[in-house]
């Protein structure tokens, strides 16, 4: 079974540009999450999709970030316009259902560098 995949693995852009990150969850997983880790800090929750609906987007930093999950399959996270503080590793995770104890499976992450 294929794991969670993310594209690209690395992205280097200049401040003010737009970047779109993609996540393909494990097939059949209705729950899809985005997290971010800024260097040296904890992994922080951004948002959670159940199928195509946003269940919880309380972690989104501001309106420069837009996440979509059309059709309830893959998801994209767009940052527009990017700022220096957006640099970090963006992780996507998926899970089949959410019950206490149902762990999330993480992708390898996209390392975003904003210059």
């Amino acid at each position: 079974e294929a794991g969670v995949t993310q594209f690209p693995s690395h992205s280097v852009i200049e401040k003010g540009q737009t970047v779109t990150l993609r996540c393909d969850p494990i097939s059949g997983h209705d729950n899809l999450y985005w997290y971010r880790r800024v260097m040296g800090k904890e992994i922080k929750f951004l948002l959670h999709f159940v199928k195509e609906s946003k269940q919880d987007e309380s972690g989104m930093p501001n309106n420069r970030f837009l996440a979509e999950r059309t059709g309830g399959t893959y998801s994209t996270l767009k940052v527009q316009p990017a700022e220096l503080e957006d640099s970090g590793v963006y992780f996507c995770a998926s899970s089949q259902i959410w019950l206490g104890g149902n762990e999330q499976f993480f992708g390898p992450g996209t390392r975003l560098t904003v210059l």
Partner: protein
Amino acid sequence: DQQVKQNSPSLSVQEGRISILNCDYTNSMFDYFLWYKKYPAEGPTFLISISSIKDKNEDGRFTVFLNKSAKHLSLHIVPSQPGDSAVYFCAASVPGYSTLTFGKGTMLLVSP
């Protein structure tokens, strides 16, 4: 305000010995705790978890202990192996929410 704290950024242990990684939390609503392991350039991988109704969970070489009164949990690895060298993240969740709240991680180095 960090709700999950891993106060040791790194830990070095010799192969065959016990590794003990610690985690403290402040949110008394947390009812489920997980440990993830992360190698460089990879995503975190689930290792072991524990519900707040238990005080111990064991899986092979890995045991997690939970002390609710102290709001403290620990991960024991016995015996430690060089392949265990990685960053270990403690995470927690509250009932009804999918959000995982992570600590900053502890880098474990197991030397031969």
